């Protein structure tokens, strides 16, 4: 019985680690592409009209706040799964009960 529970917990933890990895890969790829495009377009715009560089920087800052939100929310969920995994709670309750 104990071995079965330990196996179950290990299985949940292994799957959680895979999911955390997937979250990091997906969110970091999305954000990396977004930032690359954003920086590229900024340089393009600033090269074309240098006097607008300041204005573009302000807009880039605002857009960046939204762009990296996805990866930060991903990090938040990964932190939850890593340090306080709610998927383990039913198993722990079953052991306790």
């Amino acid at each position: 019985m104990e071995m079965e529970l330990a196996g179950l917990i290990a299985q949940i933890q292994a799957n959680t680690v895979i999911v955390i990895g997937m979250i990091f890969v997906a969110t970091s790829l999305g954000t990396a592409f977004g930032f690359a495009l954003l920086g590229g377009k900024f340089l393009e715009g600033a090269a074309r009209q240098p006097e607008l560089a300041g204005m573009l920087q302000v807009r880039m800052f605002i857009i960046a706040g939204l762009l990296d939100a996805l990866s930060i929310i991903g990090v938040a969920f990964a932190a939850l799964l890593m340090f306080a995994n709610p998927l383990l709670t039913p198993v722990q309750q079953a052991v306790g009960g």
Partner: protein
Amino acid sequence: MVEPDAQNAEAALARVIAWLLRSQAMLTVATAVAFGLLGDLAMALAAMAGGSIGLLLTAITGLRLALAPGGEAKTMVRTFYRAMALKFVLAVILFIIVAKWFAGYFLPVVTGYFVTLMANWLAMRRLVALGGREH
């Protein structure tokens, strides 16, 4: 000697950052009050913690950008990417701390953070409404 255009751009950036921080603070308090009314004190504190993370990240990134010497576009982009990297590292640290403190109240934490992002949409809308007068 700093160019007038660069000075204007710095002032505009400072104004936008100040406006963003004000809006995020107000949204954080509103979310915490809503969670406090609908749930309990712990939920309100969790929402406040989530909102504070958003606020802190914006403040640090904004300061990092605003304090950097302006001028060339290349320098701006370099500073910007460094500020974003710092923001990401800070976000990881803060969310790990909060995940340990508010493990059972993670929905209010994420909601609190998510609500602060609305300030960015509002800031974009405001810029469009101002029609470029205030960058």
